[in-house]
């Protein structure tokens, strides 16, 4: 029911729907306040027993009023109605009920509640064994869960950003505002973040005045001042959800959640805030007092009832009762009466409480029961053994306040029990740079909150050496709570502690009985605090009940650890918006435009997109294209963009010595103008990466790495340079992107290149195999030429500045038409290197050795190089597996990579496994499938027929062991 006043804009009406029915509210409303205004008390069902539930809180601690918000792909399950700002056209549905919220068939669970006590499922559903997956679990899974996902991709955009400040103030209530004001006036760089869209925090929910004026006037004056301060950044609708190391905080700004759709803006932004100091002014959460059947719609936290009346001008009922153990209950009664709500009674567990107005006070009494199937109708009040039923449609329960110390204990500091204030306070070992203020530090009166906020800021600024003075703060109420602890109303019947997960006082008792008494055992056995509200309203009460049972104090019983996030955070925003094709950067090769225009099919190779093969008109299967490209390279000339290989420029007086220590084979003896193949080991002796090392000048080398290892090899080279041998004069820099590099391979390679070089002698004598040179091409483009081959053909790699790459690629194809010049992609590249028996990623997978690769003798014993010592360990030396070529006995059969190798006739099991096939392809040169693989004793088994077992695809193929060099084993072609 709507009351008078409040901070809502009655000049505008917003239409919204809940469970298909349309209602009206106003700007300033939350979904929860608008529903209450329309007399909707029933908003959800509990998780386990499907009990009818209404809203109990007014903030992000709400455990009951969870809805599915929005429709279609934007459906958002488990959204708290209490934090949803109303907008026109909002659609919400209740969840976890069938067929409807009022008549939920699963509520039958409640009848069997006695069987469904804490931990019951660990004790049953075990027989027969196969029934778990088939019967029990599917039934449990169907019944469990709350809202449902749309199963469609999130259509909205998300953003991330990084902020830096001197002082981060978390919470814009009285304490946070005072802290921000103090620091901002001092000129510090301040960020003030609050989850609400309006500054003020609890001040907005109370009727207190500041300096005899409404609190909103003071807030408005502050906002005016804040707007003039460029050193203060206010983040509204922003929840600081986690405190991480070294003053780094995660925060989510709900940029567009209050709008029907975000438009071009992101829906939410993830901020990573780096703060030198932090004032945590996150307020406090009210406790309820469990009593029999305390979960009916209409039973709420007292402070929430007050907030709804004061800020949103709504009450869930005309006639309301209060149950309290402190003066806050009376404050609620006073505020409600002043807004025209009838107070049936204030039930106070203390003996001598005084009324704050004209209403009935029942002292020394407790609420001991309730009635009303889908909403509260009456409560039982017990005093001195006598029980009286009092009619009321809402009950406000005030059990005291728990400081919101969550962020303070995100770094595993444990909250400390304060016996005097009967509350947990922030741990002594706070996250570095954090100060707690206001209600979060149990400074709950407005006066104390303002003062502690200002003081916290002064302390923080003093630490930072920023001069500041305490601002004049308004006069404010300073009335104590006069709390007398009452953790639950004793009784035999169910009294809820954790509303969402249906954990009752009885469950805690059973947990105690079964020796699940450690706090974590209690949580896990009963599921206490595991629901979407993270136990904000439950955990402390449950601890107190357990303490009562063990007879130990609360301090001794323990405390739970708060973990991030403070409130749940959408996975989308944590992902930061880089999804779909923008998940990772896309690197393009220099010839990409030409390739894209000439039929290339691209493939992801790490971050790179490479041409996999080029489809020519009439080709309908990828093998046609690949076979054509391979044969062209073998018979004419093929051109392939190999820019993706890592290139590192190595210079310095000691460059030769440096490279000699990095590669396992000798490099110092390499002459200027020549290239050498190099193999790098890891320090553990396994083969790591291969490439070429070209000596362009006396003190200038360019080395290449594999595409996959470009980054890690460079890192390792810097490690060697800076950490292992800083005495060497070596300079390193990556030049991978600077040069477009193309492989030109095939019998006509020389002829083709002769058409582009500017007066350079390419004859075998002048530029032999493994030569390199600086030169120019196409009338003056700087270029580098390397005579190297991974295909076994006469081959070169030509490099030009990347900007010319696309044009040079086109030029080579165009000029080589009569020579059969054919662009080829990674598939043909793979076939060519397999035919030549050249190791690549599948062979250099980090699990193989130089010896296995047939390069054991390359590991020099005459020098120290990375990995050389460990490569000689007995276990590595004893491994007889070596790279061999494999060819099917029946040429029509496939060779399949990933098959395991066995001796013919052997049983096929782990113990008889002799190796595996690393790479395989169809070889147009051989006319059958071929492969490379590691085979035990492989060096001695040439000619033997073995079996390749591929049981995962029900294949078994007889293969003959052959040389890994299917093409030109003598190397005549590449030297031609």
């Amino acid at each position, binding site marked *: 029911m709507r009351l008078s006043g409040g901070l809502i804009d009655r000049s505008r009406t917003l239409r919204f729907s809940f469970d298909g029915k349309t209602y009206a509210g106003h700007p300033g409303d939350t979904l929860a306040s608008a529903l209450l205004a329309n007399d909707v008390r029933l908003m959800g069902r509990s998780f386990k027993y499907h009990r009818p539930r209404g809203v109990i809180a007014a903030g992000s601690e709400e455990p009951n009023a969870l809805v599915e918000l929005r429709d279609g792909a934007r459906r958002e399950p488990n959204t708290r109605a209490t934090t949803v700002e109303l907008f026109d056209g909002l659609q919400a549905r209740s969840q976890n009920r069938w067929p409807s919220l009022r008549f939920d068939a699963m509520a039958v669970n409640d009848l069997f509640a006695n069987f469904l006590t804490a931990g019951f499922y660990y004790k049953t559903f075990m027989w027969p064994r196969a029934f778990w997956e088939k019967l029990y679990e599917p039934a449990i899974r169907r019944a469990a869960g709350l809202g449902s996902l749309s199963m469609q991709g999130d259509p909205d955009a998300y953003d991330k950003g990084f902020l830096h400040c001197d002082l981060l103030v978390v919470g814009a209530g009285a304490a946070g505002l005072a802290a921000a004001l103090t620091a901002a006036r001092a000129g510090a760089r301040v960020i003030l973040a609050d989850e609400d869209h309006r500054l003020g925090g609890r001040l907005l929910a109370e009727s207190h005045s500041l300096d005899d004026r409404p609190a909103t006037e003071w807030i408005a004056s502050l906002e005016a001042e804040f707007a003039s301060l460029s050193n203060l950044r206010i983040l509204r609708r922003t929840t600081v959800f986690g405190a991480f*190391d070294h*003053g780094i905080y995660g925060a989510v700004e709900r940029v567009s959640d209050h709008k029907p759709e975000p438009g071009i803006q992101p829906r939410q932004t993830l901020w990573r805030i780096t703060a030198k100091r932090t004032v945590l002014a996150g307020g406090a959460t009210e406790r309820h007092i469990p009593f029999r059947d305390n979960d009916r719609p209409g039973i709420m936290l007292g402070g929430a009832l007050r907030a709804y009346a004061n800020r949103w001008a709504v009450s869930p009922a005309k006639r309301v009762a209060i149950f309290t153990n402190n003066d806050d209950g009376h404050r609620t009664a006073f505020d409600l009466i002043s807004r025209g709500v009838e107070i049936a009674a204030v039930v106070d567990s203390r003996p001598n409480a005084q009324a704050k107005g004209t209403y009935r006070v029942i002292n020394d009494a407790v609420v001991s029961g309730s009635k009303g199937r889908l909403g509260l109708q009456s409560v039982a009040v017990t005093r001195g053994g006598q029980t009286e039923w009092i009619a009321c449609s809402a009950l406000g329960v005030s059990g005291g306040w728990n400081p919101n110390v969550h962020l303070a204990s995100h770094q595993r500091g444990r909250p400390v029990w304060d016996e005097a204030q009967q509350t947990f306070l922030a741990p002594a070992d706070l996250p570095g740079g954090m100060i707690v203020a206001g209600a979060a530090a149990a400074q709950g009166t407005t006066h104390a909150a303002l003062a502690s906020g200002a003081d916290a800021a002064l302390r923080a600024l003093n630490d930072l050496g920023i001069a500041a003075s305490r601002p004049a703060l308004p006069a404010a109420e300073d009335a104590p709570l006069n709390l007398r602890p009452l953790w639950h109303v004793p009784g035999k019947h169910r009294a809820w502690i954790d509303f969402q997960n249906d954990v009752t006082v009885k469950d805690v008792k059973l947990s105690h009985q079964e020796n699940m008494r450690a706090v974590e055992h209690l949580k896990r056995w009963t599921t206490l605090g595991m629901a979407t509200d993270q136990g904000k309203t439950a955990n402390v009460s449950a601890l107190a009940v357990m303490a009562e049972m063990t007879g130990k104090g609360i301090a001794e019983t323990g405390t739970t650890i708060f973990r991030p996030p403070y409130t749940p955070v959408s996975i989308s925003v944590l992902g930061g918006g880089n999804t779909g094709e923008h998940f990772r950067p896309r690197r393009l090769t220099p010839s990409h435009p030409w390739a894209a225009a000439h039929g290339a099919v691209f493939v992801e190779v790490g971050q790179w997109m490479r041409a996999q093969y080029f489809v020519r008109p009439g080709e309908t299967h990828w093998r046609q294209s690949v076979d054509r490209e391979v044969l062209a390279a073998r018979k004419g000339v093929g051109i392939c963009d190999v820019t993706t290989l890592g290139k590192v420029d190595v210079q310095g007086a000691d460059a030769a010595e440096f490279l000699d220590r990095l590669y396992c084979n000798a490099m110092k003896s390499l002459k200027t103008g020549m290239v050498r193949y190099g193999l790098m080991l890891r*320090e553990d002796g396994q083969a790591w990466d291969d490439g070429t090392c070209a000596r362009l000048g006396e003190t200038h080398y360019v080395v290449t790495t594999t595409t996959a290892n470009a980054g890690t090899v460079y890192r390792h080279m810097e*490690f060697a340079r800076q950490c292992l041998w800083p005495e060497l004069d070596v300079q390193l820099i990556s030049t991978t992107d600077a040069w477009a590099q193309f492989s030109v391979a095939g019998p006509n390679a020389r002829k083709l290149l002769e058409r582009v070089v500017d007066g350079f002698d390419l004859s075998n004598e002048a530029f032999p195999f493994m030569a390199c040179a600086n030169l120019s091409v196409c009338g003056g483009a700087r270029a580098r030429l390397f005579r190297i081959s991974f295909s076994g053909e006469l081959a070169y790699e030509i490099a030009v500045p990347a900007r010319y790459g696309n044009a040079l690629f086109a030029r080579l194809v165009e000029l080589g038409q009569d020579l059969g010049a054919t662009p080829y992609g990674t598939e043909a590249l793979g076939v060519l290197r397999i035919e030549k028996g050249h190791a690549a990623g599948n062979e250099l997978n980090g699990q193989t050795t130089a010896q296995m690769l047939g390069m054991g003798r390359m590991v020099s014993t005459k*020098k120290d190089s990375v990995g050389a*010592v460990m490569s000689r*360990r007995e276990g590595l030396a004893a491994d007889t597996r070596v790279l061999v070529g494999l060819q099917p006995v029946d040429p029509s059969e496939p060779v399949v990579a990933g098959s395991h190798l066995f001796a013919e006739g052997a049983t096929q099991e782990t113990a008889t496994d002799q190796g595996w096939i690393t790479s395989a392809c169809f070889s147009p040169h051989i006319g059958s499938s071929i492969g490379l693989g590691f085979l035990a004793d492989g060096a001695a088994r040439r000619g033997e027929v073995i079996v390749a077992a591929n049981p995962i695809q029900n294949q078994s193929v007889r293969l003959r062991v052959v040389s890994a060099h299917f093409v030109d084993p003598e190397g005549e072609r590449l030297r031609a």
Partner: protein
Amino acid sequence: MLIPHPLLGLRDAQEFSYLGDASLLLRPDGMAENAAETFFPYVYLRENPAGLHRELWFHEQGDRSWLVVTRNTVTHEILGAELAGDVVARNRASRDGGDLA
């Protein structure tokens, strides 16, 4: 985490790659007769302390410096960072005294 780069000030740890214990600076001589015995602990054994740990970080998305960072592995508190090259130079200068890292 924030790493106090000796040249660039506090930088987010996300800019760095982690390698491990700073004892990796002390690579044994691979040509020594006892190389097999010295390389095994160098490559494979770690103190792995719960407390202060001197460790190597590479400023990969930064100036490409290798740093030796002293960090508490229990609290993540960082007590300091130096250029690894400076640490190596100091080690070598005091090698006669047997002072390592």
